[in-house]
């Protein structure tokens, strides 16, 4: 039963994606950034797509269940990420419009007048995207497996749904993504709000009695550092700053900025998008319910699904499982498309085969979707733990793009060598601290420490190396 419902929704999502296809053969601008013609709704769901993901579904409730208050950083940073978008996105979009950017790497290549920096940014982006894509796959496999009581195995679910994802990304590009994202957000919010309200009522007689019980029996969960030893107030502050600043530095959130029709969309969306984060509160309720009902779970990420399983009939589990599965497919689609564009245009054409024609680049991008999906599947099924370290570093890693983006927007005269050195310093320090078990460092998030060092290296070298190149083009400059 649950399996059939999930399958139905997954196929429906793929159909919506396929139907969004434009007539004729798309060019790269049409495929990657929708011809720069998206209105407020599609830009909204692409920018919000990252919030209601598999992670929110399983990971956040798992954090609440396992650690308690450190999970507060998530609603806080998502609200602030949109405040930042008010300042950051319009100038990025303007530059993109003027120079026809389709990717983050294009931005660096043009504004620093450096092919090398562009290739570096593309390669780093792809390296962090692959494990993130794998995570979506693994999450999807887990959801379907649990929701069907093991009737559908994880790998089968991953293969079927990702073949469908590859199909609609190949045919419809970012536009297919955006329309499936609309469906996903509706399902996800319905599911979260429904279970966040009804579970407390069915199990505790209401939200208030449940919250009272948590405050009585599990008080230590409700303030920092929760049940952790090292995620205290300083960790919370540095993590919220880091993740809100880094949010739009993800290549798959940076690229879709260029889909917007005009830059006013970002300002208006930035006003309302924080409200969208209220849904996260209901995930907290589910986490609290799990804490009281089923302590001692082996895998905290299973908290949400286990609670749902205990509370509802099988068909509802199917709907929640379907929302979870579609929720994995959307970010996966955007990640795949972004990696494919970066690979074909910014690595292959720029660094290896400069003679490639634009229409060939488009074809290679579209076919790369299949290759990238296959690589992620291979890792997810055969080598599930191979990329764990990369995944861990991912968010902190991509945030290291920030100095280069800021300098360019502000029109500062900085050499590409300075930005590249800062970027590599930031990623190196992040990797060293995190893999070496030194995160947090003196209570501060390791990625934040790395970002500060990155800024210092880029600024100092930037001052020394200035004059060796023309100033970066700025958004304030009139075309």
């Amino acid at each position, binding site marked *: 039963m649950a399996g059939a419902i999930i399958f139905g929704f997954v196929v429906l999502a793929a159909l919506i994606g396929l139907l969004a296809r434009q007539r004729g053969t798309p060019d790269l601008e049409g495929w990657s950034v929708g011809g720069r013609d998206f209105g407020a709704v599609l830009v909204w769901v692409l920018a919000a797509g990252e919030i209601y993901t598999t992670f929110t579904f399983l990971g956040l409730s798992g954090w609440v269940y396992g650690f308690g208050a450190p999970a507060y950083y998530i609603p806080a940073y998502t609200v602030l990420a949109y405040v930042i978008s008010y300042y950051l996105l319009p100038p990025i979009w303007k530059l993109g419009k003027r120079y026809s950017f389709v990717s983050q790497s294009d931005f660096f290549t043009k504004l620093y007048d450096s092919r090398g920096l562009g290739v570096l940014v593309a390669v780093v982006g792809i390296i962090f995207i692959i494990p993130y894509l794998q995570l979506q796959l693994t999450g999807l496999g887990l959801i379907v497996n649990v929701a069907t009581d093991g009737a559908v195995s994880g790998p089968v679910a991953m293969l079927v749904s990702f073949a469908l994802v590859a199909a609609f990304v190949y045919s419809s590009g970012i536009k297919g993504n955006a329309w499936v994202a609309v469906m996903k957000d509706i399902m996800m919010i319905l599911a979260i709000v429904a279970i966040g309200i009804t579970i407390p009522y069915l199990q505790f007689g209401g939200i208030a009695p449940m919250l009272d019980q948590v405050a009585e029996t599990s008080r230590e969960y409700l303030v920092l550092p929760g049940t952790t030893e090292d995620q205290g107030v300083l960790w919370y502050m540095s993590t919220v700053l880091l993740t809100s600043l880094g949010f739009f530095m993800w290549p798959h959130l940076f690229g879709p900025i260029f889909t917007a029709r005009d830059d006013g969309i970002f300002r208006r969306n930035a006003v309302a998008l924080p409200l969208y984060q*209220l849904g996260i509160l209901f995930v907290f309720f589910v986490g609290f319910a799990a804490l009281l009902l089923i302590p001692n779970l082996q895998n905290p990420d299973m908290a949400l699904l286990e609670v749902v399983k205990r509370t509802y009939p099988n068909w509802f589990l199917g709907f929640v499982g379907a929302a979870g599965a579609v929720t994995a497919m959307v970010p996966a689609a955007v990640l795949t498309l972004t990696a494919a564009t970066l690979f074909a245009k910014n690595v292959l054409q720029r660094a290896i085969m400069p003679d490639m024609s634009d229409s060939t680049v488009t074809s290679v991008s579209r076919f790369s979707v299949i290759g990238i999906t296959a690589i992620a599947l291979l890792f997810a099924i055969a080598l599930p733990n191979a990329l764990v370290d990369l995944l861990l570093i991912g968010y902190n890693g991509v945030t290291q793009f920030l100095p280069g983006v800021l300098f360019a927007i502000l029109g500062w005269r900085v050499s590409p060598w300075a930005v590249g050195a800062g970027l590599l310093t930031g990623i190196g320090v992040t990797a060293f601290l995190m893999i070496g078990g030194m995160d947090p460092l003196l209570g501060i998030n390791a990625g934040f420490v790395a970002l500060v060092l990155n800024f210092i290296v880029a600024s100092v070298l930037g001052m020394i190396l200035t004059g060796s190149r023309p100033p970066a083009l700025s958004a304030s400059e009139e075309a």
Partner: protein
Amino acid sequence: MAFGQRTRVRGEAVIRLLGLIPFVMLVFAAPFVNTVEPRILHLPFFLAWITIWTILTPVVMLIMYKGDKRRRERS
């Protein structure tokens, strides 16, 4: 552009600093709000604080948006 006009435009740009308020409340206030009591609508105080600022941030952003729009239209 006359000097007086420029300072006025710059003065109005101050409204763009309103976006700092959510940062102060959600990041820098953390040491002062990291408590369970007093509970608001049964929520632990810290979580209630974050929820309140999730609702108030759009209000702040709306005021900033309106002011900023007027400024941009004039310049």
